[in-house]
């Protein structure tokens, strides 16, 4: 099957392309850029006039809720949502029920995702059995089964010796360890940033030092063990500063932030809006400014959706009892575009945070449209505005802090492996 995407503005951060160029796809791969290869006869032509053509988005944190939480969402519903959001690859954290701690579970998930013929799924396996923080999982077996990294999701890993051993073991084989820094004692029962809003609303709080203390432990052990460490969902100014300093000292550590945290702060909780009950908590305006500065200077590599669909009932509760999480797959691109516009970031740089950079963190040769690369492509209208509302979302999760807002950026085509998997 030959596809020609013509008249679009091609943005490919890896190859430093931002120009009006046609894309030619043959046999699942990019065959040529600019002019057609010899003898190329398109079976299908996508007219991308006025649209942007870029590598398919790669999301580092999308909960698909399978297995175990199918009442919240299913693989099918969320994979649909992913491609509707222009996402062609996604990493899912291991906090399913049971957790992704056995090769069989990873294989099953990969197999089921593959049969859906939509986005590519890269499971992140549990670092410890049952995410209990006690025993190591069979990491090499899990990698053979198809997982790409190891994480504790949001489960605590309080035993520092286990953390060190896990990092040493992962480093032995060159596996990546992804951790979200949060001290479990300091964050116990907390539901909001320890600041002005939690004080006003009387909400149990999570102080910034819960992040920095855990981060300090992780960075120290990463240096000690030489593991490939990725810090997930950094939330505070102090945290960003610590990662910046660690990198300046030569530690190879990568880092992501959620699209919600780029745009929102504790202030958005307003009168106890349960849609703003997120993990990590939304922090102060000063923290948000530092997260944006961290993105600009490259301390933060990637932006993830932190997609966490939650069923409606679980949000119709008092703030602290409401389930944490928000739907995000279909908002990732709009929120990145909004950030780029607000902070005057070049579109190529902004898009690299959801394409090339996450691919590198995943250790994949993806997130670019070089000749010969898999044809995972997103074609979107950057000037189209749409209103975020339940009916407009494919995800089974309908809750987001952005409900009712106008956002910018509508996906028109998503291609995975040279096949059109979504069209609007």
């Amino acid at each position, binding site marked *: 099957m030959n596809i020609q995407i013509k008249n679009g503005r091609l943005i490919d951060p890896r190859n430093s392309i931002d120009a009006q160029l046609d894309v030619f796809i043959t046999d699942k791969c990019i065959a040529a850029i600019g002019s057609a290869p010899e003898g190329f006869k398109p079976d299908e032509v996508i007219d991308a006039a006025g649209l942007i053509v870029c590598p398919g988005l790669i999301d580092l944190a999308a909960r698909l809720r399978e297995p175990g939480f199918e009442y919240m969402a299913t693989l099918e519903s969320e994979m649909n949502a992913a491609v509707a959001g222009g996402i062609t690859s996604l990493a899912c954290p291991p906090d399913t029920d049971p957790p992704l701690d056995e090769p069989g579970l990873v294989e099953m998930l990969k197999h089921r995702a593959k049969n859906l013929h939509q986005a590519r799924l890269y499971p992140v396996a549990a670092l410890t059995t049952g995410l209990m923080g006690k025993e190591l999982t069979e990491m090499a077996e899990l990698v053979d089964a198809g997982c790409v990294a190891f994480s504790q999701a949001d489960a605590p890993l309080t035993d520092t010796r286990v953390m060190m051993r896990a990092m040493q073991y992962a480093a032995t084989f060159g596996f990546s360890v992804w951790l979200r820094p949060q001290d479990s004692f300091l964050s116990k029962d907390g539901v909001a940033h320890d600041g002005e809003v939690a004080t006003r609303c009387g909400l149990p709080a999570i102080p910034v030092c819960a992040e920095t203390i855990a981060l300090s432990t992780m960075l120290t052990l990463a240096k000690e063990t030489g593991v490939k460490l990725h810090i997930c969902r950094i939330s505070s100014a102090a945290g960003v500063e610590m990662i910046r300093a660690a990198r300046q000292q030569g530690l190879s550590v990568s880092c992501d932030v959620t699209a919600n945290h780029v745009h929102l702060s504790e202030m958005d909780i307003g009168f106890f809006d349960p849609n703003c009950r997120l993990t990590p908590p939304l922090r102060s305006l000063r923290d948000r400014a530092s997260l944006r500065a961290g993105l600009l200077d490259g301390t933060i590599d990637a932006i993830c959706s932190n997609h966490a669909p939650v069923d409606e009932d679980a949000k119709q509760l008092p703030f602290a*009892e409401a389930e944490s999480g928000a739907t995000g797959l279909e908002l990732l691109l709009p929120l990145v575009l909004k950030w780029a516009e607000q902070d005057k970031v070049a579109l190529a740089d902004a898009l690299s945070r959801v394409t090339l950079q996450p691919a590198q963190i995943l250790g994949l040769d993806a997130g670019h449209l070089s000749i010969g690369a898999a044809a995972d492509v997103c074609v979107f209208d950057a000037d189209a505005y749409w209103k975020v509302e339940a009916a407009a979302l494919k995800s089974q999760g309908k809750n987001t802090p952005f409900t009712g807002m106008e956002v910018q950026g509508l996906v028109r085509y998503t291609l995975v492996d040279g096949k059109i998997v979504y069209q609007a």
Partner: protein
Amino acid sequence: MKNPQLNKHGELQHLLTTEGLPVRIMRDILDRAATFLDLDEGREIKKVPLLHGKSVFNVFFENSTRTRTTFEIAAKRLSADVVNLNIGSSSTSKGETLLDTVDNLCAMHADMFVVRHSQSGAAHLIARHVAPEIHVINAGDGRHAHPTQALLDMFTIRHYKKEFHNLRVAIVGDVLHSRVARSQIHALTTLGVPEVRVIAPKTLLPTMVENLGVRVYHDMNQGLRDVDVVLMLRLQNERMQGAALPSGQEYFKNYGLTEEKLAYAKPDAIVMHPGPMNRGIEIDSRVADGLQSVILSQVTFGIAVRMAVMSTLAGSNK
């Protein structure tokens, strides 16, 4: 952001918090409460038909005898039909959600809900959910707000001190976990009290509490110096478990209100407490029962203030 407790005419639709409550409404409630009191006798005399034919549901997801009783008396003096529900141990433990419970009670034709819940924001959630003709009164939600307590405290202060603009007020104790303290602070600053102090160890103060418009003191004697009003807070016994305090005795030594410490306040300072008191923990009996204590007046005034709140809400029913 729309103020969730006002209707489109700017009238009080729900009473959820004293934060952002317009000073005009606050003063109206206090004035109205005064009309329910026979000030010569110091007790209520009137039974009035202002809520005749209306159903008031006291819905308490957290147990309380005192607050519920004063709401019940207030509603009955307004001629309302009162239904008391202690849900703390029934429906929610059977799996029914908070809003399911509320829906069921709405179907029983409730006109007004008086709600207490252990979670901050519960009253806001209910107010957002119910039909526009139903009123919600927050009788305490988690650590967030207890507006009728704060209003009756303001009524008491005004009764004894006449004005707010020349007062120094100290709030003493567990501000961190106190919905009463938060509501008092907002009410005092709204009514124009120029100096509000909080006195507590650092473990019992929330982060950035000074942003609420208060001065922070850790030393009780300094904090009480020249104040006109001392508002004591109840200390929950479980605070010792969370490592917030070493012991009740040590707390009493540093922050318990004794005659010696009270001597630092103005000679005519009044002492208040929302109850129930822990004698010998946050307050010495000689102060609690002393001449400067107005704690029992608070209870009496509480009924008039709650009558004023309920009748104000019923009057805004448009």
